[in-house]
Every structure is written in structure tokens, then in C-alpha cells.
């Protein structure tokens, strides 16, 4: 049982006071007689009396108590004042809900309302004045009435709180029917309540994640919007990653991230991954939904169909039809560029897209196409059948990239926009992205053996850099800033110690070095072997400058920038980030990253 807005309906509202002679009692309630001390009441009021008006110490707090099948939420107010007959006045506006219902949205407003009435009572005796003779010492009544008179306004009709009965019944009606209310109390005060749903706190998003809008974000913008939010809006298109959005819009990355987290918090966005033809997707157990969930397959058909408007690249997004819900402009680049051209590279996908991609949420059963587009086409578009679509989804698997899959199923994909096809599957949980995690054997080894092989490699690169780079100022710069900041901080000392030890030679290893000569010819790979030599316990002084020189000479030449990137890459590898994350962070294509990985030694991928 929920109201139209999804809030738990209020079962009853009552206003209770501490009666000077009768103790805690309900003065007004709605619906009438729902709570009393008889059997046909919601619950026996006497049972919870002491929780409705508790001891003064517990007053002025939000208190909710479970009684029977119900939950009573109230904000008991206690005011000490000599004007009152018992020197204090207690009241509580209580709301009754079914137990086990979600009432968070109400709780804050109940608290606020309680506080407001407390102030009004303190200032104007708003509540006690209604039955002044009971609550207020007779000698003070006159004096109190004077307080309420505004000088010079004696002849004006004063709006006053006429009855609590009508107040709470209006609260009851309005909140249950409209989830909001606006009830004037007197000339200056009113009860304004609007219930808001509460969502869980935004989750930390990753730089490589791609937001895709579920609503037309442009329609939401108003003057009060955050400038960053407005700046990033045009770039949220279901293709750009968060990092990319922050770059394109020239906004701070953390601010961008926060904006997107907030948009997601309000369900304006969903998160997908960067679409690339080198991605791998596989079906989930929810693929069944495609066959079962009503309308899902129809929605899919209308979303993924490709109008192939490669000729129309002016990006005319004005939608001719009146509906305006679906923007079918996207002549997606993914398909236009095809897997043969821009594929595999991270930036390849990022070409022009149609305007707002409304996701599944906005799509009705029908397709609306602007006449402009129709003019430029002269052929039959066959919307793929459901069985075919299901077959295509299920044919994705863990061991095939989209490119391979495309080539294999090309003949069925003529009218399918592949990017949309994949996105639809992702958003509806039919398929999942199999992420690739590059692994560097050196990293694994240094973790397994708990040593610093990886840092030695970095050192070697640095030495190489020093020897090749004449520009020592530049290098110093790197040394002092980047290195100190970014390499594993504590290892710095250790490595320095080690470097000192290079100064004296240790002949005993020469033999081993000679025998290793062959493997050294393999180039960089040999680093592994040699560093394996250092594994021996007495290795602190074992590194011979000769080996180092040898190693260093094997290393490819790199520039300063490359070195910086290499450091970043190693860090990301040690954090076991996936390839999307690495590409995004280094702003390089996958092929570039792969070649960098090769410089670092043997490597591979885990596809998870």
C-alpha cells in the first residue's frame, strides 16, 4: 500500500497534550476515534501514553515507538513557563504508520513541524491559547492575549489557528493525496511540507565509467544549476568517459565526477562502459528476461535498429514528431566507422554522435523518425526479429571480442546499431562487460617474493634516462617531483641504500652472468632472469654495476614524458586496474599501452 508517489500513507494523525488534571490525552485525531482505549482502536492509547508525552528530559527529540502493528512517530515538546497552570506545557503531534514501513521521508518533516510549533507556542501561546482556561493560569490569560496583538493592526482580521482538528485533517488529506501540503496558520506562519524520497549516498565512480542519460538532461537545467554541471552536460552522451567529459568540458575531474555521481543519485544517469570493438561481452543469467519481461524485446527492437544515416552527418537532431520522447538521430559512429577503421583504439569510438541518447527509460513502443532523415533514405529497413536478437545476445561469449563477433554475425547485423545493441544489453543486465586486467609478471613476482624488483626496473629506466638525457635540470625536476611523489614512497630509501652498494664489485656472480648470457640476448625479457638472481637472501650487495649497465643498455630509449607515463602505468598495474582504467588515466590507446607493457617485460591479460 503506497501513495501515488511511493510514500507510505499515514494511517492516522493525532494531537496529544498533557492535561493538567487528566494527564496525557488525545485532544484531536483524524480519522475520528481511530485511537482510544477501547478494543476497536488501532491500539490502546494507555499503553503508550508515557511514550507520547515522556519525561521532560526525553522531550524535544524525535521519538518513534512500535505499538502492535503500528509505528507512532512524534516530536514531544515540553515548554517550561510560569504562565502555565502547571508551570509547563507538553504537546505532541503524532503520526501513525504501519509498522515496518519506510517513514524516513516523514521523520524529518515531523521533527521540523514539532520545532515550529514549539517556537509558535513559546512566542504566541498558539496551542495552549486554544483552551487557555485549562493550560494557562487565569491571571496570565489577559497578558498573553496582549502579546498576540500587533500594535496598529487591531482592526484587521487576524488569521488565527482556528482548530487543530481541521489542521490535522488537512495534513492527513494533503499528505496522503498529494505528498505535500501548504497550510496557513496565521498571518505569518504556515505548515509547508513536501515529501522527498531519500536515496542512498552517491557511490564513488571511476574515471573510465561512461554515464548515459536516462532523461533529457537539458530539460532539467535551471538558473540555479552548478556551473560545472552545465559545462559538462553537452558531453554526457553515452560515449565519453567521466575523465573524457572533464577534459572536453575543461572542468576539474573531481568536480565532474561529483556532478555525475549526483546525477546518478537522482536516477538521471546510468553507468555503462566505454564501447570499443576490442571489448568482450558475455551473457548473464538475466538474459532470460529478454524472452520473459513484457515489452523488453520490443523496446530493444526500437532502440537498436540502425537507420544508417551515414550520408546525413549534419547531426540534425530536431525531432519532427510531436512526441519528443525519443531522439532517434544517433547515426552512431560505432557502426559507421566499423570495426575495420577506428577499432581497438580507445579514441576511435569517440567521433560524432547524435544528440541525446535517451536510454531505455524514455523509449515507448513506437519509433518516431524525423522526416528529414527519411528523405535521405530510400530502402527497406528490416527490424530484426526477437528470436534473432536473442540469438545475437546469447552468441556473445567470454572468448570473443565484439570485432570477432561482428565479423562472425555480420549478415544479421545490417540493421543493427551495434553500440546501441550492446548498451541495451548492458543497461538491462542481459549481458555484462568482460573487463581485461593487464598483468605484468614482474609485478606478480615482486609481490610473491615481497621484494622490489619492479622498483629496480624503474631505477634502470631512470639511469638510462640520465645517461641519454643531457638536460639535467629537467631530470632533476623529475627526480624531485614525480619520483618522490609517485613511486612507492617508502621504497625510496631502500633503493638508495642499494644504489650505494653498487660501488663495490662482487665478483662471485660473474660466472652466473656469463651463463645467463644467452637469455640476455632475448632483450628485455632477461631482466626477469637477472632480477631473479637478486632474489637470493644475500642480495643486498649482489648487484654488480656491470649487470646493471648490461640491463640498462637493453632497455629501449625513452623520453622524459614516456618515463613519467611508465611510472604511472606501473602504479596502475600494481593496483590491478583494468585496461579501460589504464587507457583513460594515461590517455593513450590500447595499442600504445600494450607496447608500453611490452617494454616492461612479459605480460598478459585476465578477463573477468
Amino acid at each position, binding site marked *: 500500500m503506497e501513495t501515488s508517489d511511493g510514500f507510505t500513507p499515514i494511517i492516522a494523525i493525532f494531537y496529544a497534550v498533557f492535561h493538567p488534571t487528566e494527564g496525557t490525552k488525545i485532544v484531536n485525531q483524524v480519522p475520528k476515534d481511530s485511537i482510544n482505549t477501547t478494543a476497536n482502536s488501532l491500539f490502546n492509547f494507555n499503553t503508550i501514553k508515557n511514550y507520547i508525552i515522556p519525561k521532560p528530559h*526525553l522531550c524535544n527529540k524525535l521519538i518513534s515507538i512500535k505499538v502492535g502493528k503500528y509505528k507512532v512517530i512524534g516530536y514531544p515538546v515540553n515548554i517550561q513557563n510560569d504562565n502555565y497552570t502547571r508551570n509547563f506545557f507538553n504537546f505532541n503531534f503524532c503520526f501513525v504508520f504501519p509498522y515496518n514501513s519506510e517513514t524516513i521521508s516523514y521523520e524529518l518533516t515531523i521533527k521540523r513541524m514539532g520545532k515550529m510549533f514549539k517556537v509558535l507556542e513559546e512566542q504566541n501561546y498558539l496551542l495552549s491559547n486554544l483552551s487557555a482556561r485549562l493550560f494557562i493560569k487565569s491571571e496570565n490569560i489577559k497578558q498573553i492575549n496582549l502579546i498576540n496583538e500587533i500594535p496598529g493592526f487591531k482592526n484587521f482580521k487576524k488569521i488565527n489557528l482556528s482548530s487543530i482538528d481541521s489542521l490535522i485533517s488537512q495534513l492527513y488529506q494533503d499528505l496522503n493525496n498529494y505528498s505535500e501540503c501548504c497550510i496557513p496558520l496565521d498571518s505569518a506562519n504556515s505548515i509547508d511540507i513536501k515529501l522527498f524520497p531519500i536515496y542512498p549516498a552517491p557511490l564513488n565512480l571511476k574515471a573510465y565509467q561512461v554515464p548515459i542519460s536516462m532523461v533529457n538532461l537539458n530539460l532539467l537545467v535551471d538558473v540555479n544549476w552548478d556551473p560545472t554541471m552545465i559545462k559538462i552536460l553537452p558531453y554526457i552522451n553515452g560515449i565519453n568517459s567521466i575523465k573524457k567529459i572533464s577534459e572536453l568540458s575543461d572542468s576539474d575531474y573531481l568536480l565532474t565526477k561529483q556532478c555525475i555521481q549526483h546525477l546518478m543519485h537522482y536516477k538521471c544517469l546510468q553507468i555503462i562502459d566505454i564501447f570499443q570493438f576490442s571489448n568482450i561481452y558475455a551473457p548473464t543469467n538475466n538474459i532470460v528476461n529478454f524472452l520473459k519481461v513484457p515489452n523488453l524485446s520490443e523496446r530493444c527492437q526500437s532502440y537498436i535498429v540502425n537507420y544508417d544515416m551515414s550520408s546525413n552527418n549534419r547531426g540534425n537532431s530536431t525531432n519532427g514528431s510531436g512526441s519528443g520522447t525519443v531522439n532517434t538521430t544517433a547515426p552512431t559512429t560505432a557502426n559507421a566507422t566499423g570495426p575495420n577503421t577506428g577499432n581497438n583504439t580507445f579514441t576511435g569510438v569517440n567521433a560524432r554522435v547524435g544528440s541525446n541518447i535517451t536510454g531505455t527509460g524514455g523509449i515507448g513502443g513506437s519509433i518516431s523518425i524525423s522526416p528529414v532523415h527519411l528523405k535521405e533514405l530510400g530502402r527497406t529497413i528490416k527490424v530484426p526479429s526477437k528470436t534473432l536478437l536473442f540469438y545475437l545476445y546469447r552468441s556473445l561469449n567470454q*572468448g570473443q571480442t565484439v570485432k570477432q563477433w561482428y565479423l562472425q554475425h555480420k549478415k544479421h547485423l545490417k540493421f543493427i546499431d551495434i553500440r546501441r545493441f550492446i548498451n541495451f544489453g548492458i543497461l538491462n543486465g542481459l549481458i555484462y562487460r568482460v573487463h581485461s586486467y593487464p598483468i605484468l*609478471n614482474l609485478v606478480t613476482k615482486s609481490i*610473491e617474493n615481497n621484494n622490489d624488483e619492479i622498483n629496480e626496473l624503474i631505477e634502470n629506466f631512470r639511469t638510462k634516462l640520465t645517461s641519454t638525457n643531457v638536460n639535467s635540470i629537467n631530470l632533476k625536476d623529475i627526480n624531485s617531483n614525480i619520483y618522490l*611523489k609517485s613511486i612507492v614512497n617508502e621504497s625510496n630509501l631502500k633503493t638508495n641504500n642499494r644504489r650505494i652498494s653498487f660501488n663495490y664489485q662482487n665478483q662471485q656472480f660473474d660466472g652466473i652472468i656469463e651463463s645467463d648470457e644467452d637469455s640476455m640476448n632475448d632483450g628485455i625479457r632477461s631482466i626477469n632472469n637477472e632480477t631473479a638472481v637478486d632474489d637470493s637472501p644475500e642480495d643486498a650487495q649482489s648487484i654488480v654495476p656491470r649487470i646493471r649497465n648490461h640491463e640498462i643498455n637493453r632497455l629501449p630509449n625513452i623520453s622524459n614524458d614516456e618515463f613519467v607515463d611508465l611510472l604511472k602505468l606501473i*602504479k*596502475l598495474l600494481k593496483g590491478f586496474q583494468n585496461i579501460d582504467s589504464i587507457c583513460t588515466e594515461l590517455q593513450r590507446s590500447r595499442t600504445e599501452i600494450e607496447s608500453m607493457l611490452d617494454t616492461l617485460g612479459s605480460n598478459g591479460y585476465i578477463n573477468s
Partner: protein
Amino acid sequence: MSFNLPNPSLLGLILVISTHNGPQLVFKYPNNLAVKPQDEELENDEYRADDSDSDTESSEDEWDTRHYNFYSGTKKDILSFLDDQDKHRNIKSDKASPKPPRTFQENIGLGIKNLGDSQSNNSKVSIGRPESTTIFGIEQDYLIEMLCPPKEMCNSRFEINIDDYIFSGLPVHCYDNGTWRKKTKIASNTDSTNLDDSVDSPRTTTSMTSFHLVFIAKPPVIESNYRIDEMYHYVVSRLSLVLRHEQSKHDYVWSQVRLISKLKEDFKNQNIFHDLTSFLNDKSSLCKLISDCYNAISSSQIANLSINSKLRSFQIPVKTEFYSIPDSTVPYLPGSHLSSTVNMIGKTGLINVGETARYDIDELNDEDADSSADDIIYLSLLLLDDPERIITDIKAESDSTLASFIRMIKPTETLLRLSHKLKADSSLMSLDISQIKSFAFHLIYWRRARAIPPLNTRSSYIVSPMAPITTNMYEDIAEFKKAFSTMPSLPQFLKLLSSPTKKPRQFATIIPSKDHREIYLDALAWLIRFGYVTKLNTFIWLKVSKKVKIKVEEDMENEALNMNFKTSERKKAVQGTDNTSKVVEKPSLSNVSNPSSYEKDIDDIVMGIKNINQGPEIVLEDDEDTIILDPARANALERRWINKVVTEECKLSPELTVIFFSLLKYMNGKNSLELILLKENIPRNDFRRLLIQIEDHLISVRHW
């Protein structure tokens, strides 16, 4: 939501009783309940500028993958995050002494030791200070009064929220006749296991009229209902009922209460213990169990409590089993297991299945799934820890049936097979299948084992999409190395399982030789235990091609003609089940033209005519095939299709036809072929022959 992460939010426990002197506080734990929890201060500094050294003060929570803070808020960019993580690891490794291999238990629960430490630290600090009289800012005496509700509210769930603090409990009130339980039992005097208690018989009316063990929690607002329900259901109510039982049988609570008040006096005269709480914990079993309960539950551990010298366990189950991947924005415990077999036992209440959506708590999607908990015998158990360790942990006798059962468990054998083995070999203990089942349930519920399809070299395994690569891999590489020093490294092994160029293959293909079989299976078990790997299952549906459908239709028309039937109804039926829906009509061209120019108008008309000729025709491709979703509930027409497929298209031999029809009900995409094979006990060969013969009429999906 973060429901997948354990978050008991338990702040403390208080035991209150009411006597004719009014309500009184007996014991509270931890002692310093006045102190506000630290969480609150954290909330405001979620967003920190990226400049510099603020990370030194980042709290433990942010590095704890079991804590929501790890996932929420706006964190720094990945590079600085990794830097911090590295730093954090180094600090930790400097502190930590060499420790035993990580276990699944440690994986999911907070380190209880740390918690205990901080507790004792806190209590040391409080030495000398007068005992605080407020509990979270509320005057203790008034609060106690509120926590002793009138009789009408007793013996049922009690809950009061005061601001953000939730006090939840099950107040137990004695009945008018002085007994503590509804049904007055025949002279409980006979039952006197505890000699000390026999002095005061349970029926002597004590002055205590009610007792109430209150759990104080402060969960995040958005989850508060859920967390409190969870705790009430699993711990609060159960523990209170046990206490009531003990009270009714042995007057346990009251005698302990008297003991405690005596001890409080004694405390002043002794000088061994520095603070009252640890003194009470040492001397009173009730205090001890309350403290133990707090320590375990607040850190999501299992509370093994000794209640009147009987061992009882309580836990809030953790969610480490998933049947589908959570949304990318839903946090879950790293190392969680993903498998559709979870669906099978998820409904038994043995395990808490993880939530997958961010906003709605979704129910298990197949209410009608025809699998039940009985099917567990076709699965095998994967112990989440070393068997001997489990045996000592659950305090089972080393030679008990349970212990020997635990030792017998192999992840490669189904429980059914295990029972056959036991039957065949009379030298082993005797255990019937129902006992095995209940042992299995026990181990699963108490986080000691996981039900998985038996490990098999013929099955294919994939790296789970929920594999904790970014979170746990760093530590696990070393653990894996320790456990399997002769095997390829963990990343290497995972790489073998996930070749990007080949479809997932049988596990056997990566085992180098027969001698390696055992250890590879062991390693596989390890990987499944820590959530890295999951099994790929095959699910099938029947697919009816257009050809078959036309044939059936022809047949039906013939029949109709012959029998002079009303054909119209049948036709309707045909249309109803056909997946083809209405053809999308060609959108009409609404040409909004400008009437001012005559020529333009003509142009527009010309264009319009052209457009009509050129306009793309949008047609829905007809469905060639129909997929039968639930063959067990097929309608008449579908059944005819199926028969047609069996008899004419595939021409199955009689024995295969029998097998086919016995398997038909499983062809609904819910039951994996692998499990069907185990369940129906069909010879593998026949099964394969059948599948090959009907291959063209099947559509299969492979997932976990």
C-alpha cells in the same frame, strides 16, 4: 544500496529489569555508551581537495572493503588513490606480524581482536572517572524507564527510536501466574540439570517481573528498517527467547542479576580488576555473554555464546552469494561467489542472497523455479576453511560424526555420492542422506561451506565477473603462492582460465598432465572459495522453426477439414502464440510547408512525392523460430510442435524419446545441463546422443 555489505551498526547492549522497586539497569556493554561513535565526523569530509597531505588522517573505514565508506563519496583520482593504498599497505605490513593464511572468515568479518583491543583501551581510559549517567546523551534513569514497557507491550517486538538511536529488543514479562512462558509445563522441578539452581525453584515468585535485553544501534537512515529487522530477526529475538527459556527453566536471568548486584558491591573491595566491566565479565556468565554478543555481532562475526553453560550461536548472515551480477553501482563484499545454484538454496533461508539493484530490493526472480533445497544432494560442498580448523572452530568433538563428515567432504563429489560411499563401506560411520543434508545446511548457514556444482575437469570455468581483482589480488597473490608453491602464479592461473581468443574451454585443457590433476583441482577450489572463479553452465530452450510450425498448421487444417471443425478458434490460438507483433507502419510524412511561396509549395509537393517513393520501409522481420519458454506448461499448440520436432524432425529412437520427455521440463533456461545430468541419472552417452540429435532445435545460453 549497500545492503550487500554487513553493517550491524550495533553500538551497545543494555540489560534492564523491572522489579517491584521499578526498572533498573543491570549491565551495559560497552561501558562508555556516552561516547558518540566516530562515524559521524566522517561524513562531512567526504570531499577533500586533491592537494596533498590530508590522506594521513584518512580513517580505517575508507580502506576497509567491508565498509560502505570504501565505496561511497567522491574519492580522489585513481593515481592518488593507489598511492594512498600503497602507503596504507606498507603501514599495515609494518605493523602486522607474520600471520597465518587468510581464511574466508577473516575475509568477511572485521578483525575481532582489534575491536577487543580498542575496547579495553577505552575502558582503561575511563578508570577513575565517575560512571557516566547518560547513554548517548539521554539521562540513564529516564531511558531505563522507557525501556521497561508496560506489560501489554512485552513478549513481543519492542522498538523505540530516540533521535537517531534505535533501541530494539524483546522485553520478556512474566505472566500473571508467575511463569515466564505461556504454556505452563508440568513441574519443571524434575528437570534439574543445574544443581545450584535447584535451591530456588523456578516457580518461586521472584521479585523480577520483566527483563529486557536492549540492542542499541544507529544504522544509516536509509537502511535503518532493514538493518534493525535483520538484527532483530537473527539475534535479538532468538537470544531473548533463549534467555527466557533459561529463566523459566533455571531462573537463570534472575540469579545472574542478583549475582551481578552482589559483584558490584564486591568490586569495591577487590583490587585485581581495574574496571567494573571486566570484573563482571570475569565473574558473571550473563555479563560475559552480553559482551561476547556485542563484540561478535558488531563486527559481523558469529557470536558463540555460552548461555547457562550451553553453547548457542547467533549471526547476522553476510551476503556473499549472488545469482546475478550486481549493478556496477552496487557495492558488494569482495570475494563474493556468483552462481545460479545460489538460486536453488537461496529460498531456504540458509544464505542471504545479495541484492543486485541499487534502489529496489528485488526478490528472487523465479518464484516458480522448480528446484528445492532437496537438490542440495546433487551439489557438493566446498569448505571455506581448513577442515581441522572448522572442527575446532565449531567446537565439535574431534571424533564426532560431524567432524568425520567434515573430513570426508570433497568439492569434487556430490553429497549423494558421499552418502553412497558411506553406505557401501560399512567400516565408515553411518549417516543417512537426511543427516548429510542437515549437516550440509548447518555448515552453509554458519559460513563454513558453500554449495557448488561438483568440481570437474570436464566443466568449463571462467574468471568471475565479480572477482575481487582490484581489491584482493594484491594480498591474494602471496596467499596463493603460499598455498600452491608449485603452481603458476595467481594472475597466471587466472589468465589461463580466461583466454581472450578462445571460447571458455574445459578445465582439463589447462592441466598439463595427469599428475597435476589433483593439485589443479585444489587450486580451482581455492579460487572458487575466494570468489575468483565460477563455473560456466549451459541452459537450454527448445526452438521451434517456422518449418515445423507450418507443418503443424497444415496438419491442423487438414484435421479441421476432415472433422468439420470450427477452425476460427484454432487460428486465433496460432496468432496468439506467434511472437510476431504488429508491423510498424510507415510514418506518414507531415510536411509543414510555408504557404507564402507558390513555387516552394510545388517543390515541396514534388519532394513529397519523391519521398514517398524513396522513403525507407520499416518492417519487422518475421520471427522464424519460436522459443518455448516453459515446456512443462506448454499449451496444446506448443505440445504439437514439440511432438512434431521429436517424431518427424529428429526421428528420435524410442529410448531417446523417453529421455527427451523426461528432460523436457528442464528446457526452460533455468536448469543447467550439468545439474540435470546429475539429477536425472541419465547415462552421459545417451544424453550426448540426444543433444546431438536435437541440436538444431535447441538454443542454449552459457552463463554461471
